[in-house]
């Protein structure tokens, strides 16, 4: 829209969502556009708010775990861990080795599954249908592993305060071992097929750029932060569980745009597979999967906040306890919620056609945004 040709434009309000496939759930965005340029975007959330924090105040700690599944339902394993980790920190529990390894294996497989789903749907947003079919086929293989382990494909309810609920069934470890090289090859193939595609490069480069300073100021974490050149990963920089035993890289890019986030997620899948491979090698032949915990879990009086690295960024749980078996107050730091608030800044001044590409690159899950 060149300004020399005095074309009269009017501001137009465009309502996107809450029922729109590219919003990945029930997310509504009120966009003001001038011609094709976005002048303002106002996110409206809360359509999936279920009051998890309120409900949890009347539940004991074991009962809360399935509720965490339903926040980030794309990566429920990390959510499980986020909650039990805080309770374990409060209680000062020692977790058996075998349980820790099982946890790390499922959490890293979960990261791969989550990024695969992002990869498929993101390219679908951009107009490419086939990557979705491939990505979902491979993701399904990981979900089948989880299904075998705990009987659910998405809402696992797998972890417990003190360990995990189920031990690996016979042959499971071997199957995962075989899966790792296969998945590595698949990711390489996707990379070759899609990343170099001219359309993809043109649509993602220089779009939705954020500087490192802004990323920190806006409380962004995870891939969003790493795409600005900040090598920050809680698995590496504040290791929890047994992450200090594994060798892995923290992929970073410096451009801070959608393409940077795209490339980082691809490399993160490879790094997660590296961790899974190492964990499978070190996996203890036998041992307990649950620490000795009392039948009724009571946390000592006081409060704790712990944070871990989820596929979508820094996820954390705050518990204020009054010594009972239920939390006095529980609060989840939900990375999608924190990351989404930068969206109006990212889309301002951009072309309307790029809005979906920018939203997709943040990788939100509405169950988590709305809590």
């Amino acid at each position: 829209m060149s300004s020399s040709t005095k074309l009269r434009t009017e501001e137009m309000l465009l309502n996107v969502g809450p029922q729109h496939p590219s919003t990945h759930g029930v997310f509504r965005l009120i966009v003001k556009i001038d011609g094709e340029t976005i002048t303002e975007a106002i996110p409206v959330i809360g359509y999936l708010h279920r009051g998890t924090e309120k409900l949890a105040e009347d539940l004991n700690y074991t009962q809360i775990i399935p509720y965490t599944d339903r926040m980030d339902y794309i990566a429920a394993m990390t959510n499980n861990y986020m909650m039990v980790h805080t309770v374990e920190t409060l209680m000062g529990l020692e977790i058996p080795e075998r349980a820790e390894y099982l946890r790390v294996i499922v959490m890293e497989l979960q990261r791969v599954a989550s990024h695969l789903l992002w990869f498929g749907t993101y390219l679908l947003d951009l107009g490419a249908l086939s990557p979705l079919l491939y990505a979902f086929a491979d993701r399904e293989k990981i979900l089948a592993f989880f299904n075998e382990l705990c009987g659910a494909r998405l809402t696992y309810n797998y972890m417990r305060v003190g360990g995990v609920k189920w031990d690996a069934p016979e042959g499971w470890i071997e199957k995962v071992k075989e899966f790792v090289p296969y998945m590595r090859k698949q990711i390489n193939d996707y990379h070759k097929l899609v990343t170099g595609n001219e359309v993809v490069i043109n649509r993602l480069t220089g779009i939705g750029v954020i500087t490192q300073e802004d990323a920190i100021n806006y409380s962004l974490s995870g891939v969003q932060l790493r795409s600005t050149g900040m090598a920050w990963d809680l698995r590496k920089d504040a290791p929890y569980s047994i992450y200090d035993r594994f060798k892995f890289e923290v992929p970073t890019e410096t451009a801070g745009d959608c393409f940077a986030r795209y490339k980082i997620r691809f490399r993160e899948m490879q790094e997660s597979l590296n961790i899974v491979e190492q964990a499978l090698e070190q996996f203890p032949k036998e041992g307990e999967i649950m620490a000795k915990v009392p039948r009724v879990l009571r946390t000592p009086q006081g409060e704790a906040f712990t944070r871990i690295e989820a596929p979508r960024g820094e996820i954390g749980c705050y518990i204020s306890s009054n010594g009972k078996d239920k939390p006095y107050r529980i609060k989840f730091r939900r990375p999608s919620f924190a990351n989404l608030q930068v969206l109006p800044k990212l889309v301002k001044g951009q072309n309307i056609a790029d809005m979906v590409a920018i939203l997709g690159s943040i990788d939100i899950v509405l169950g988590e945004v709305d809590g």
Partner: protein
Amino acid sequence: MSEEKKKPTPEEKAKAAAAAKAAAEAKRKRMEAGAAQSAQGDASAEAPSNTSEAGTEDIAKAKADAAAKAKAAAAAAKAKAAGETGGDADAKAKAAAAAKAKAQGATGGDDAKAKAAAAAKAKAQGATGGDDAKAKAAAAAKAKAAAAAAAKAKATGGATGAEAEEPKKPSPKQPVLDKIVKVITEKFGTDVLEDSYINELSEHIPTLIVKREKWHEVARFMHDHEELAFDYLSLSLGVDYETYMESLVYLYSYKHRNNVCVKVKVDRDNAKVSSVMDIWAGADWFERETYDLLGITYEGHANMKRILLPDTWVGHPLRKDYVQYDEEV
């Protein structure tokens, strides 16, 4: 029906307190009776003291008692100094129970433990602490009771398997806390901080309680000052403690790799606190969420509206006295 559970009346509280007290008394009597039977054969401990009771056994007992008392008294004084009032009976009972349980864990010297527990209990009940102070009193009483029990066990020569706990080591994060407090008090004087301590339950995070009126200035300072440089806001939330509310932020400094938790106490009926959205842009939605669910108004926030619930919603659900509004009632 859950309302009754949420709002214990003063009578109920008093009743609970009395019950807890009676239980502790009974326990103490039982312990002493048991001790009277078995206290004979113990070897003598060092006895520099002044009690008129006969036997070294009793002197050692009295010493342990006095030690626990002194510690609990210190904790109580601290609670008072913090100017906190109120608190529920079961928390206090918990402090006593913790001390008791710990004492029972070690072998030998039953009577000293019982005394220590009872003393800690008595003092804890005397204290009028808020939750933090109570937690601290519990921890202190526990540590002291354990130490006393261990010392006693050693004195009686029956220290089989009793692990003599070391006096509590200073937290590894203590220097971090000291530095933060020093930098802040150099700028603002000592009265902006109501309290500062290490929260050992939460991975030893340094914790500050800042005066509500000064919070915005202190926040700006903590963000900008290069020795603090808390550039990242990890989480902002509120908690309703029934007599008051707390607004908390968890901050992180990527430069110094330190984290800190800062609390601001907020009046419950006039819940207002400065917004820090202009300092950390990421506080925007967190503060709106806290306003929505807890009713803490963040002054200076650019868009202080509900975020998760509909604009027409009545009340703030995470308040402990929340009753859902129903048009038909």
